[in-house]
């Protein structure tokens, strides 16, 4: 049995685990071992309490009422925007658009760029390791406009083939849309270099940051990224809420997307004028509790600190890589040198579904299947994988349990 690593205090880890009620759940009578953090993270009490408190004491519609409660709700809601802007290093909260999540953020850009900015013959560059949500919106845009989707290949290890990527950048390229951290493989893409090379060609860059922000500090200004998309629920906040960060000038140049309340300045049947950023892209009553809960999640993450998160997750990744590599017939899929704490693998010839089902009986939650990256699975020649993804609240002993579970599964499924 492995001990916790030297850098991580067992006391601190157990205190942190106590912040997450779900981690104490039992599944099939076994203590839950939650290793599906790339699908969604668990929520700390600070977030749960903040959302409860909002609904108990502050609930009112925002931007509407003259009454005090509406003002309290609006202050909390817009305060959340300020917090989020500061957290990601945006220049101003006008650059922070609230969405349902990463998927909607990507769709917003794909939809609005289709009104004039992207035309027939233009090209959009993605990679082979994109999530479907960073493929399909661009395919739809291409169908609508006659633009062309170019796909940068990856290596056997699951890294972007950078030479091929560079070759794809040309005078027809209008946008580069790349995943920051691969959800299926954990690969961390060289986003600084991508942004610098794309900007060198005058091409803006959109990053799908859904899997990056849970693991690392992202500063959109330091990156000089043009659009950055993320989801609250992967970052210990509520589901159904996310962010589209965009440089103000670029957002200003985009037409409105969904129409409705809150996004308008003045409506008349002879013509409607639209609200300013960021509200111009936020039609309808928003997910107020989502924004407020997410701000609480960011405060929680700050209280833990990305340095600690990085050290802990790095330890878990290396420990898990070494332990799982020792299992007969286990093949890790995705071996890039720079990885977030995600391990995809196959266990002999066993179907990932079978492995996941057997692990579930032991209380171990992993993801199985294609992880919404079917083109990537095809490229790697696998039908799908089993994926264990770690958060800072996971422990080495949980990895030992995973390994023991896999040994039993191998015995049954061999």
């Amino acid at each position, binding site marked *: 049995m492995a001990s916790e690593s030297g850098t991580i205090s067992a006391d601190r880890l157990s205190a942190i685990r106590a912040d997450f009620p779900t981690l104490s759940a039992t599944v099939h009578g076994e203590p839950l071992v939650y290793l599906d953090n790339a699908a969604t993270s668990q929520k700390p009490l600070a977030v749960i309490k903040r959302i409860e408190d909002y609904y108990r004491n502050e609930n009112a519609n925002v931007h509407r009422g003259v009454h005090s409660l509406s003002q309290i709700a609006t202050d909390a809601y817009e305060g959340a925007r300020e917090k989020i802007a500061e957290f990601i290093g945006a220049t101003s909260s006008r650059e922070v658009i609230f969405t349902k999540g990463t998927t909607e953020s990507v769709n917003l850009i794909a939809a609005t760029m289709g009104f004039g900015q992207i035309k027939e013959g233009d090209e959009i560059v993605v990679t082979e390791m994109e999530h479907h949500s960073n493929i399909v919106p661009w395919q739809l845009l291409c169908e609508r406009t006659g633009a062309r989707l170019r796909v940068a290949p990856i290596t056997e290890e699951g890294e972007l083939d950078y030479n091929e990527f560079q070759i794809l950048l040309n005078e027809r390229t209008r946008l580069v849309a790349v995943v920051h951290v691969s959800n299926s493989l954990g690969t961390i893409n060289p986003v600084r270099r991508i942004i610098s090379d794309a900007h060198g060609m005058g091409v803006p860059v959109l990053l799908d940051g859904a899997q990056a922000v849970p693991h690392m500090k992202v500063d959109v200004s330091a990156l000089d990224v043009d659009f950055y998309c993320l989801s609250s629920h992967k970052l210990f906040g509520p589901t159904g809420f996310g962010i589209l960060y965009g440089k103000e000038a670029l957002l200003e140049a985009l037409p409105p997307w969904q129409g409705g309340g809150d996004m308008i300045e003045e409506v008349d049947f002879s013509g409607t004028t639209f609200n300013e950023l960021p509200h111009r892209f936020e039609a309808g009553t928003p997910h107020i509790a989502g924004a407020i809960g997410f701000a609480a999640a960011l405060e929680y993450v700050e209280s833990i600190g990305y340095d600690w998160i990085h050290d802990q997750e790095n330890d878990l990744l290396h420990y898990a890589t070494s332990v799982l590599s020792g299992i007969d017939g286990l093949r890790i899929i995705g071996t890039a040198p720079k990885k977030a704490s995600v391990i995809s693998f196959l266990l002999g010839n066993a179907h990932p579904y079978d492995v996941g089902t057997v692990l579930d*009986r032991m209380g171990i939650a992993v993801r199985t299947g294609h992880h919404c990256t079917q083109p990537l699975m095809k490229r790697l020649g696998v039908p799908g994988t089993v994926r264990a993804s770690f958060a800072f609240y996971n422990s080495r002993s949980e990895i030992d349990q995973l390994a023991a579970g896999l040994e039993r599964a191998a015995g049954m499924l061999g």
Partner: protein
Amino acid sequence: MSAQDLTTKANELVEEFALFDDWMDRYQYLIDLGKELEPLDEAFRTDDYRIHGCQSQVWLQPVPGTGTVSFKADSDAQITKGLIAILLRVVNGQPPALVAGTDLAFLDQIELKEHLSPTRKNGLDSMIRQIRLYAGALAAQSTRTDDN
């Protein structure tokens, strides 16, 4: 064949599974049953016979001409294949009208019902619907034949 036979077959399975008090042994038995499943001809492992249920692939071939329900099936996942074996053991050889209306409640007693949820992504739920659909069509066909 009658309702009695379907119930008897289901009860047999319930009793067989009751012999194991550990879930691992139950799953092992399930996997073993899958391995004993009559093989599906490669020609039927195509999209036309595929049940779309997400993660594991399931193929279902109705075998024509027997007057009773008769299926062959396969899956690329072992646990799914075991579940298929259980289902086919109960429904094959039964009168179509009976199968079309059965609720397969016995699966509850084997503690495998969780696998039949439409959200389980193993294709089993879709397969049961497909089995009932075929059985219903077969029953309607034989009624028409009787009328003639």
